[in-house]
């Protein structure tokens, strides 16, 4: 269960996942933030207003997937490293995930795809990495994954720290 092993269950995920139609249309953010904690940077990081300002600091983020264009700014702004961008309009699909370990993977590298429970799910290719001033040391790694794993891959391993 989420509260004892910190791994989201299908029911938890269903509530924060856009419709299949929206997912198929292009990149979109998914906030796997399931607990009410005093935190709101995602809402003010998003310049498109897709995460409306919080009325209560402890509320959970609600992303308006029609306004979200999957720009990924919120991915590195979230201190919980809980936001991912999924793009199922491409083949293979692309998952953008926050990454704070060294060394950083290089574009083109083959990496192990990892699920929420730390288990390996297969291999994927790093397409791109954003690691500039905006990301403030929370790199955003773009990794190509088979479409059926787009909602499962949330971390990568390739032999650096944090393995």
């Amino acid at each position, binding site marked *: 269960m*989420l*509260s*004892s*092993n*910190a*791994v*989201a269950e299908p029911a938890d995920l269903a509530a924060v996942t856009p419709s299949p139609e929206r997912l198929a249309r292009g990149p979109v953010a998914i906030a*796997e*933030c*399931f*607990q*009410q*904690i*005093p*935190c*709101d*940077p995602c809402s*003010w*990081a998003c310049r498109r207003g897709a995460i409306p300002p919080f009325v*209560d*600091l*402890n509320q959970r983020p609600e992303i308006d997937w029609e306004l979200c264009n999957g720009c990924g700014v919120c991915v590195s*702004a*979230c*201190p*919980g*490293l*809980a936001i991912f961008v999924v793009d199922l309009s491409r083949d293979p699909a692309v998952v953008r995930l926050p990454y*704070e*370990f*060294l060394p950083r993977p290089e574009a083109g590298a083959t990496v192990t795809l*990892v*699920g*929420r*429970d*730390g288990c390996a799910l297969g291999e994927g290719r790093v397409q791109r990495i954003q690691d500039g001033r905006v990301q*403030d*040391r*929370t790199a955003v790694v773009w990794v190509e994954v088979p479409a059926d794993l787009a909602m499962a891959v*949330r*971390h990568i*391993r390739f032999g650096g*720290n*944090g*393995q």
Partner: protein
Amino acid sequence: MLKQTHKFFGSRRQHAAMRGMDIAAAMAAEAMQAGVEVWLEATVLGLYQDGVLLVQQRERVVTVQVARVVIATGAGEKTLAFPNNDLPGIYGAGAVQTMLHLYGVLPGRRVLMVGAGNIGLIVSYQLLQAGVEVIAVLEAMREVGGYLVHASKIRRAGVPLLTRHTVVGALGTRFLTGVVIGRLDDSGGIVPGSERVLEVDVMCLAVGLTPAAELLWQAGCRMAYIPELGGHVPVRDGRMQTTVPGIYVAGDVAGVEEASSAMVEGRMAGLAAAWDMGFQSPQYPHLWAEAETELAALRGGPVGARIRQGLAKLAAVRAREVAAGA
């Protein structure tokens, strides 16, 4: 905060999404710019009711007479009692952070973390970032105590969370070589046969903090035991002033909480002390109301319930004392 390399929660007003170390640097710069004189490596050894502080700075010891003082000494770590808990290799989480982030020294190769509160989770993550293997995080409770987003970060990095588990004993003669752990049953005992050995060279204890209130005890401030706030905390009025006039408190020493609320409390204690000294700026009511709103927001959710409960108890203690004194 200097040792916190992760991005912080909270709202924009408390610098959320900035890393702890960067918040510390920004606040230090702000204070310097405002003309605050900072004494580094200076320890307050004593605080007396007449407003005299005894301060040791490196080789010198001086007394300082103050009109008002804000005590913000933070908190100290709690520890656990188990056989062999004095073996080298057993550290508090604060010590591990100091080694990693102030001195750049790895505490060991394989770590068992004890405690799945925010500190245990965050320090586990920092150990992983430093290239240290974290074998597991042990937690006596049924559920993870810290924020789930912190727990999920280390979970996907492959660290198991062993809830309902505790330390039975430490192994080793000259230094730690392993830890015997066991599963807890419903009455808090070890399930027979559930004991097993984890081979590790470091055990890191992150089992809670308690206010570092020695100076307040010494000054004769009235203290109350409030478990929800971490132990003995100073009784105070709504303006962060203790029962000794002129001594104010802020941050973890006033009740173990978060950096975000500590920053706001610091602002409040500063405002109150300044006002009481005659610096009665017309902005005061506005700044005060703003701080109160921020604190209420930070503490308003389900994870703030314990703090709210503790503060309510503390307010009740004070109300009783005021009634008794009147």
